[in-house]
């Protein structure tokens, strides 16, 4: 997996070296590759009968994780909001 990170870091260096050129096509390339990979992921999921049979259960687990992650970050946002606001009020 660290090959993947190495690819990204190489990309950052290359992108920085060519920073005077606006590489606009890169955003289209990223989008196309994401489409391709999610199509692949769909194929793999669809062909995998155990995953398809469990799809409802996986969806339920996904829902719990999404709900808790959203709620947790919203609460922490509230904590930061209180300190930011109390500071501006005291000014």
């Amino acid at each position, binding site marked *: 997996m660290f090959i993947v990170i190495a690819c990204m870091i190489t990309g950052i260096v290359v*992108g920085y070296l060519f920073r005077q050129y606006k590489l606009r096509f890169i955003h289209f390339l990223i989008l196309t590759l994401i489409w391709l990979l999610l199509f692949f992921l769909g194929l793999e999921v669809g062909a995998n009968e155990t*995953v398809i049979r469990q799809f409802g259960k996986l969806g339920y687990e996904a829902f719990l994780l999404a709900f808790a992650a959203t709620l947790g970050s919203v609460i922490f946002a*509230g904590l930061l909001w209180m300190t930011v606001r109390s500071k501006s009020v005291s000014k």
Partner: protein
Amino acid sequence: MKGSLIILSFFATGLLLGIYRFFPVELLGYNVSFFVLCVLMFSVGISIGNDPTSFHQFRNLNPRLIFLPIMTILGTWLGVVVVSFFLKNRSMADCLAVGSGFGYYSLSSILITQCKGIELGTIALLSNIMREVFTLLFAPWMVKYFGKLAPICAGGATTMDTTFPIIVRTSGKDFAIVSIYQGFIMDFTVPFLVTFFCSL
């Protein structure tokens, strides 16, 4: 929103073709998607390195708001760790890997599928899509009860693109730069955190 629907439809098309075996999945070796993933990450890197102006924009930010992405990360981890005690068949590291997608479902699900298999990858995809949908649907409610930073933290890595319009509408234009800053930082950290938790 339209962009997310297009992305989803690619997944759904693959799903249907896979279920009904219209496409020989055997053709799709492990190496093909891994190679495409490496090219994708290289391109993501280029897009970050190619745009150093983004860094300069963030100078006129309220210094306390620099900590906003950290709040997003800590809040998400706390929530996900609590849930991991209820999900007996998932380890805490698995749950943290899913949570560390921060709504960036395309990249996180692909990375997790490569590392941890297709089951957790599917959970990552669904879970991070739901996070984006929650933010789009409940942003006004979040502002009302948790303040104007709440939808930005909830949006995670999506606050620069898909959830940006709703954040500007509910939190106000003053929070546009904060929102872009948060999205930029989170986009950058997702690959690192997800691969880290996958390797545990």
